[in-house]
């Protein structure tokens, strides 16, 4: 009798522990999902192992490391994860597997990892097959599995895509890392030329070579790039078509043709033009055919940025004396002022989620990135500290901003999440990097 009661008590105890255990785990997962914008869960520990080679004789072991490096860096850039140092790893990639039955999860929990990235790769000629896996270490189960087939040259993109999948699984929203950033840079010499890079900064390519001044790149939905260039003497608007490998001049009225931006559906472009005798926002077709004039005041009107529904434009105007951010409804009505703090607010960038407009504000003589709701409420400062911060551009998921900062001396590109967590430096090396434009997802 006593034994049966003790047994039932032990079973009840075991069930209670299991229930509490399950509750704790789901609470941890919910924490990551729900509070990406809050303080707290910013340091979710994840271990990223190097890929296991399924054909060791084929060499290219640096690819195993590269994949892990890119995933690690993307996860740290997200501001949510803390990547456990690879030197702490106990289990070795080549002597273990990538399935729940062939991984010693104890080796990973003991070094503090709550999640684990493992995978394998197999090269045949110029093609590779990658199997990437994300495991919950505590529950010892698979959370995400992806198999990729493609050219070895595209393996970097596979790593970025997998990092985006990890964010989708753990935060409920796809990560932004399978994308590119176009920017102006003097790294190749004294001239600002347009460059493009992937998020790991390992694939920087120079796109213009005209040795004049090239500025303000902006992506189109088909991957084409607008930019302003002085290559023919006047600041004209150009469009680069990657597929065709061509550059064509789109708008070349006398004076400024500046800050060209595609509408979200790609059917129109907005830019600042002096064709009416004063810098004004105008609309045109992507080939430059004029459509209409959006602003017609005596003031400076520059830097248009589209709302995600394509019905409104945020822009910068000094019609109130100094530069402030305004929103013009393209259907009708006068532009509405959006910024009321500070005497110098420029460079609006409307989030692809539509909820926030990022901009640059002068505070105590320095320039910082701010964000405000489209109705002008709830302005908050994103950057702080030393240096000047300019040119904000949103990630495709609307959670991160890339911007140019002089905090380390020369201007470099940094990424910060919109809650204002610590900014991570993206570019290094020579010259000044400015005017970044974050593309949409590459698929």
């Amino acid at each position: 009798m006593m034994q049966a009661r003790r047994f039932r008590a032990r079973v009840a105890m075991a069930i209670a522990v299991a229930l509490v255990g399950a509750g704790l785990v789901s609470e941890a997962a919910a924490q990551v999902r729900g509070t990406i914008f809050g303080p707290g869960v910013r340091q979710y520990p994840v271990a990223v192992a190097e890929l296991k080679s399924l054909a060791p004789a084929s060499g290219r072991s640096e690819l195993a490391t590269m994949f892990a490096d890119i995933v690690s860096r993307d996860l740290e850039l997200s501001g949510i994860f803390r990547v456990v140092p690879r030197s702490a790893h106990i289990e070795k990639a080549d002597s273990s597997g990538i399935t729940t039955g062939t991984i010693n999860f104890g080796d990973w929990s003991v070094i503090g990892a709550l999640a684990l990235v493992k995978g394998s790769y197999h090269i045949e000629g110029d093609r590779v097959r990658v199997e990437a896996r994300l495991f919950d270490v505590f529950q010892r189960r698979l959370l995400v599995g992806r198999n990729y087939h493609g050219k070895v040259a595209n393996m970097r993109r596979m790593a970025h895509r997998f990092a985006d999948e990890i964010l989708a699984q753990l935060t409920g929203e796809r990560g932004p890392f399978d994308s590119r950033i176009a920017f102006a840079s003097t790294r190749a010499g004294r001239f600002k030329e347009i460059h493009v890079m992937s998020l790991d900064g390992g694939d920087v390519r120079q796109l213009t070579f005209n040795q004049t001044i090239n500025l303000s790149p902006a992506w189109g939905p088909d991957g084409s790039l607008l930019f302003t260039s002085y290559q023919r003497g006047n600041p004209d608007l150009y469009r680069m078509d990657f597929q065709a490998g061509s550059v064509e001049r789109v708008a070349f009225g006398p004076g400024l043709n500046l800050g060209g931006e595609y509408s979200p559906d790609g059917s129109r472009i907005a830019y600042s033009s002096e064709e009416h005798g004063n810098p004004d926002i105008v609309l045109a077709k992507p080939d430059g055919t004029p459509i209409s004039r959006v602003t017609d005041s005596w003031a400076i009107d520059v830097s248009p940025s589209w709302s995600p529904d394509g019905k409104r434009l945020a822009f910068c105007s000094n019609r109130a004396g100094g530069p402030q951010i305004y929103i013009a409804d393209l259907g009708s009505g006068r532009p509405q002022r959006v910024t009321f703090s500070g005497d110098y607010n420029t460079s609006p960038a409307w989030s692809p989620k539509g909820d926030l407009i990022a901009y640059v504000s002068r505070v105590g003589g320095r320039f910082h990135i701010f964000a405000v709701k489209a109705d002008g409420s709830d302005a908050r400062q994103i950057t702080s500290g030393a240096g000047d911060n300019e040119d904000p551009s949103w990630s495709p998921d609307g959670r991160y901003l890339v911007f140019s900062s002089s905090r380390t001396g020369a201007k470099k590109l940094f990424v910060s999440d919109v809650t204002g967590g610590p900014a991570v430096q993206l570019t290094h090396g020579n010259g000044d990097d400015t005017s970044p434009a974050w593309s949409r997802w590459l698929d």
Partner: protein
Amino acid sequence: MFKWRLRAATIPVLLSVLLTGCPRTPQDVDSEFGRETGETDVFAEEGVSPGGSLDRFRRGQEGTYQDGADANQGPLRDVYFAYDSFDVSEQMRDQLRANADWLRNNANVRVELEGHCDERGTVEYNLALGAKRARATKEYLVALGISATRLTTISYGEELPVCYDANESCWSKNRRVHFVTRGE
């Protein structure tokens, strides 16, 4: 007879070689990131104004700077603006009147008015501010009787400074409209 026939036969062969030249390989185009194939040399087009600030920058002559001013000013000297402003101030008017006098005495000369800013502030706003400074200068010269058709404007914003120090002494020299004469 024989010699003539040989010559007649070789002429078309020679011509065809001259006309077609050597075979060329198609230029590789990276399908993802195209280079600027087909761009012509800048100086062959409308072109960068000879002697202007961008031209000098390309030639490595930027920032030449002596005695507190841009050493590459000609008979028409720069005028300077207050911070964040495109107003033609009292201090500027004497220099503008002197420049207008010179232009009246040299009626064949056209002028490009370059608007510039100091490095503070954002790039696009400064390009627009430079444009307004150049336009304000042009309007003042026109009001003094100079024909508008002789005056063009261009802005370089903060892109082509004459000095690079982060202090007001340098900044004040960069907030300028620079006069580039053309077609003497």
